[in-house]
């Protein structure tokens, strides 16, 4: 049961195509799990199509554009295999665990989460960057062992977390597969993974801070705790 959804503003921006791609990636992953949001997106796209339909058009002769279009069409090979969907379906099931890679993430992860370049930040916490948007958001996966704490952190921008596998909780609730959690800069949280299974999340950080800065921030408390002369 999914309890946490993107806001209606986020869904609207997604359906309209104005949401940044990194955020759209999270919404897209969420709606693979969420029928309710799928329905809303469907209606929001209908609305988009009416606005599209009603928009004023200019009176411009399109004959040369049309000529060049039909020329282009004649030059391209006729699409083959008309009955087949054009994107090849990657095996949905990962081969060495029970995880299913969401369709939206298959552009980054071919068959298994294990294929990613995981960076271990503590014995129980790993992170793999999927990509950094130029001057924009950071998209990463985090993987935390069952029962472990994630490092306490604050952020300077918004953070979106989408639970892919397992579950975690913080002061405000329990988050399970498909849940979409949006935290703003003011939020400070101390997530704990539930004891039954590890937790894998997709996270997007709107990052005015550098990757190194963000990493250091994550590492700081861990390093402090593990330092032999730590006062704790």
């Amino acid at each position, binding site marked *: 049961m999914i309890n946490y959804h993107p806001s209606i503003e986020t869904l609207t*921006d997604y359906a309209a195509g104005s949401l940044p*791609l990194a955020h759209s*990636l999270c919404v897209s992953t969420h709606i693979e799990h969420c029928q309710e949001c799928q329905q809303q997106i469907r209606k929001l796209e*209908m*609305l988009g*199509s009416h606005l599209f*339909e009603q928009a004023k058009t200019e009176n411009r002769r*399109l004959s040369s554009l049309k000529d060049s279009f039909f020329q282009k069409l004649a030059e391209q090979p006729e699409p083959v295999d008309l009955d087949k969907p054009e994107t090849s379906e990657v095996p949905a099931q990962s081969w060495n665990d029970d995880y299913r890679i969401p369709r939206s993430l298959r552009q980054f992860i071919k068959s298994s989460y294990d294929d990613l370049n995981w960076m271990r930040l503590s014995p129980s916490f790993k992170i793999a960057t999927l990509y950094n*948007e130029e001057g924009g958001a950071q998209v990463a996966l985090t993987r935390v062992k069952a029962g472990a704490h994630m490092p306490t952190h604050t952020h300077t921008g918004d953070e979106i977390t989408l639970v892919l596998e397992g579950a975690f909780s913080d002061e405000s609730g329990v988050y399970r597969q498909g849940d979409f959690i949006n935290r703003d800069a003011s939020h400070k949280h101390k997530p704990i993974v539930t004891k039954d299974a590890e937790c894998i999340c997709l996270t997007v950080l709107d990052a005015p801070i550098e990757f190194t800065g963000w990493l250091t921030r994550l590492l700081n408390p861990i390093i402090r705790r593990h330092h032999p002369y730590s006062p704790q």
Partner: protein
Amino acid sequence: MERVTQLEYDEERAADMHAVAEARDQAALTRLFDYYVPKIRSFCLAAQPGANLMADDIAQEVMIRIWNKAHTYKPESASLNTWVFTLARNARIDYLRKNSRHQSDIDPEFLWQNVVDENADPFKDAQQKRDQERIQQGLDKLPKDQKQVLAKVYLEGKTHKEAAEELSLPLGTIKSRVRLALHKLTIYVKR
């Protein structure tokens, strides 16, 4: 009266689309070109005023996708207008992604693939038509300020935040206008 004509036109285009998919009918494709290309162009120009070359490129790209993907179009799950709108939206995102300062490695093709509806429902077609009607009629009755914000978000490709900045209004005002509008169109029901 006007609505009847509109419906008839919609049906003609649906027939053209069918002819494109089944018979690879180029005359039908030409009619679709005449109808949709001006709309796709103005959709692009709304986001990037004056960018005529971009508008031409995207319009051609969308028409090519209509031709190449004709067999994937399912009239029972979306109206032709909605399908073309989503193609235009995705092509615009893709173009901006490849050609602008917002370069990104995320391939939009993966993000808006139609999620396969596993509980296919015999009433879906009727439901779809009903939603369509409601949205269409509701849209005609919306106050201007609400429609203006929807146009910013959908046609100009602005986020809520950007729309607020451009109209010099607090973000809260923009949000509540959109919510009110979506509520009237029965798209948004408070959870």
